[in-house]
Every structure is written in structure tokens, then in C-alpha cells.
């Protein structure tokens, strides 16, 4: 068993971006036969969620969020093989890409990191992604489609993707990016909108909960 103090330390270490401590504590948990899936859900994902809240409220900036994500990843790297072997299911399967014509990846990559830190299985489709590529990912089981755009000239492509999946009850589309807001997301019929990377994680969680 990990002590409650160990769990507190793990939680704090992720927020603080202390990868060495995260790795040490997760290794300790693994050696003690602790339910690592439970540890991920109860301690690590909430810690990363707290980092997201700190970022959204302006208390920490991107570099600190990255350090926390790296610390989290140190723990996930240890936990992942155990989860695979135990048949543990991820929080959900998400595919993500910058829409056709948009070559920017900076915002999309932040969302990838935050989604992985929140326990989602993420397939990064890259930039300049065509509808057919999203479609193929959906066929592979990635039913949550996240779209990113940085340009006014490319956000229109989001509407095309949303239209493409309209009528598919098993697929949900979440949009975000510098040129997108809730009004636009609603106007094009997107299922969710993330105003920043932690917001995208929340939106994905909400659409998954609504689907359940």
C-alpha cells in the first residue's frame, strides 16, 4: 500500500513538475502491487487537472505546465505496461489534428499533451489533415475527433469536418484554436469547444459523459 502521505507527495510532485519524485513513487507503488489504474485515476489525473486549472486561471504559464506534463509522463511510462496487461481501458480514444490547410501545430500539441495526461488514448494525426484521414481514425475506433485551427482561412474547414460526421451518433467533434470561440463552435454544430488546452480536455470529458 502507498500511504496517504505518499499519495499527497505524488500529487504535489506532479503539480510541481518533479519527475524524479513521481517516478520514484510510482515505481514504489508498482513494487507494492498497488492498483496502478486506481492510482492514475485517484491521484495523478486529478493532479494534472489541477495544473490545467492553474493554467486556465493564469497562475502558471505554458512552460510550467509542460514541466508538470513531463513529470506526469514519467509516471505514465511506468504505469502503461501494467494497464495494457491488465486490460485496463483508457478514459477514451481521441484523434486530433490541425485541419486541412493549417500547418500550425503549437496549440494542437498542447492539447495532445494534456489529453494524454488526463488518461486518454490520443492519436495525433498531425497538421493539414484531410477529412478522409479523420474518417480513417474514426474507423480505427477514435470516436472523439478534435480539430485545431489557427487561421481565419482554415477555420471554415472545421465546418466541413463537422458536416461530414453529422448523423454519426457514435462520433463527436470538439473544436478549438486561436480563431475559434464558443459562438463559432455552436454555429457550426460542433459537439464541444475548448478555449485552451485544459478546456479541450474538459470538453472531451463532457462529450464522452454525454455519450455514456
Amino acid at each position: 500500500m502507498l500511504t496517504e502521505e505518499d499519495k499527497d507527495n505524488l500529487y504535489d510532485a506532479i503539480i510541481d513538475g518533479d519527475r524524479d519524485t513521481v517516478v520514484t513513487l510510482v515505481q514504489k507503488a508498482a513494487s507494492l502491487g498497488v492498483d496502478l489504474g486506481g492510482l492514475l485515476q485517484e491521484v495523478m489525473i486529478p493532479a494534472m487537472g489541477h495544473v490545467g486549472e492553474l493554467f486556465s486561471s493564469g497562475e502558471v504559464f505554458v512552460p510550467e505546465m509542460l514541466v508538470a506534463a513531463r513529470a506526469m509522463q514519467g509516471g505514465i511510462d511506468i504505469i502503461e505496461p501494467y494497464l495494457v496487461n491488465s486490460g485496463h481501458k483508457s478514459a477514451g480514444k481521441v484523434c486530433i489534428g490541425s485541419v486541412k490547410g493549417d500547418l500550425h501545430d503549437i496549440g494542437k500539441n498542447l492539447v495532445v499533451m494534456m489529453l494524454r495526461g488526463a488518461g486518454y488514448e490520443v492519436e495525433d494525426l498531425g497538421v493539414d489533415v484531410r477529412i478522409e484521414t479523420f474518417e480513417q481514425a474514426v474507423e480505427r475506433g477514435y470516436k472523439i475527433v478534435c480539430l485545431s485551427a489557427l487561421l481565419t482561412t482554415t477555420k471554415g474547414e472545421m465546418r466541413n469536418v463537422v458536416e461530414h460526421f453529422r448523423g454519426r451518433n457514435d462520433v463527436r467533434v470538439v473544436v478549438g484554436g486561436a480563431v475559434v470561440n464558443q459562438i463559432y463552435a455552436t454555429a457550426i454544430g460542433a459537439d464541444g469547444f475548448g478555449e485552451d488546452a485544459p478546456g479541450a480536455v474538459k470538453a472531451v470529458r463532457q462529450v464522452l459523459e454525454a455519450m455514456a
Partner: protein
Amino acid sequence: MTSAAALEMTDPGFCAAAITPQPPCAAVTQIDQAGLDRLIAAALFRLRRQAHFAGPLGAGGHKARQIDAWLQTAAGCLRALARPKVAQQTLAPHLEGDCVILPTGTRLHDAPAAETLRRGGRLSLYLLSLGFDQRAAFEWLGSDYMAHHIQSELSRETLFALGREARARGLDGAPGNAGVRRIAVRVEAAPGAPRLWDAAGVQRLLSLIDDGPHGVTMNDSGCFQPLHSVLGLLLAPDRAAVD
């Protein structure tokens, strides 16, 4: 003014080369490794003092160590991949009242600019590029998303440093750049959408710089490839007037 002044250009879709005599080729300057090192150093300095880096770096501890390590890795990535270059092309615009009409047909409603040009000023198009692809950077960084993000931030600052250095060294040919200013291209592609990026208009401007040596292209959405590239207009007053 050149003979272009006599031409009417009302269709922005006109091919500029077909209607306006331009200088034969753009001057492209490749920045050498020492120059690149200088640019990266300037970019690192600026990045480190920005609040989102200065805070955690100043606090010390493992956060500072990790961020510093990423910055060094990002700098190494740029040193390995970046091939910065500056290109400049003098333009021969047409003037119509307060309006400056570029050889591509784009109309700039800018009375002071038109006046400066009437007084012998010079309008030039400049292109700055770091000359490397983000996909290559991601691969160089071992597909590390976090390091890649820091690299993107450092690249952006390095591009700005390239612009500052190019301007300081007389990008436009005006000593000391006295009186030189950038020209804002305001596009009103659709009513109520005045800030819509006019990709086709920028593509036409880019085509004025010979597409051989600079290696920068733009897709139909208006994204530069390589991503860290900037295209702009500079207006320099008549040198004699400055002197």
C-alpha cells in the same frame, strides 16, 4: 516613378510580372552559422526575460533546470536545422490619389505612404525565413512534444531577432533606416470581416520575390512553408530627404 505609374490595375488577380516591370531578381542573403548563433543568443535572452519563462527560471529548482534544458535543446535544434535568410525586392507601385497600388493589384489606402512615394521614397517587399520545417524539428527532437513546444517559442523569437538584425543592417538600403516604416496591409475581403487574412493576396506578393533561392512557399490557406517565415512591406523615404 517608373512606367508602371501609367498603368491601370483594378483587378487584383492580374499577374504582376506581366504588367509591371520589376527589378530582375530579389537580393537573398543567407545568414551564416555565426550569424545564426547570434540570433539564437538574442532570442534566448528575450525569451528568458518574458514572464512565462522568467518566473519559473527565477524560482530555481527542478522546474528551472528542466526549462533551461529544453531551451538548450531547442537552441541545438535550431543550430542544426535553421538556415535563416532574408530576401528583399524593390517594388514599383502605382499611385492613385491617396492609394498605393502594388504591382499585384492590392490597394493600400495610405495617404502618408503615397506622399512619401511621390517624394521619391522606395517601397520594398521583404521576406524573412528560418528555413527549416517544423516536422524536421519534431523528428530532431525525438518526437518530444514538450521540447518541440519550447523550440516553437524559440523559433518565433529567433525570427523576430532575424527581422531586427536585417533592419539594423539596412534591409531596405536606407542607412540607419531613418524614417523607414512598415506598411500595414488592411484587407477587407468580406463585409464585416476586415481582418480576414487574404491568402491569395499574400501569395501574389510572395510571387514577386523570385521563387528560386529563398525556398518559401505559401499554401492556399495562407500558411507559410517553412512556418517561421514573414513577408512584409517596408517604406523608406528618399535618401536625400533623410540625409
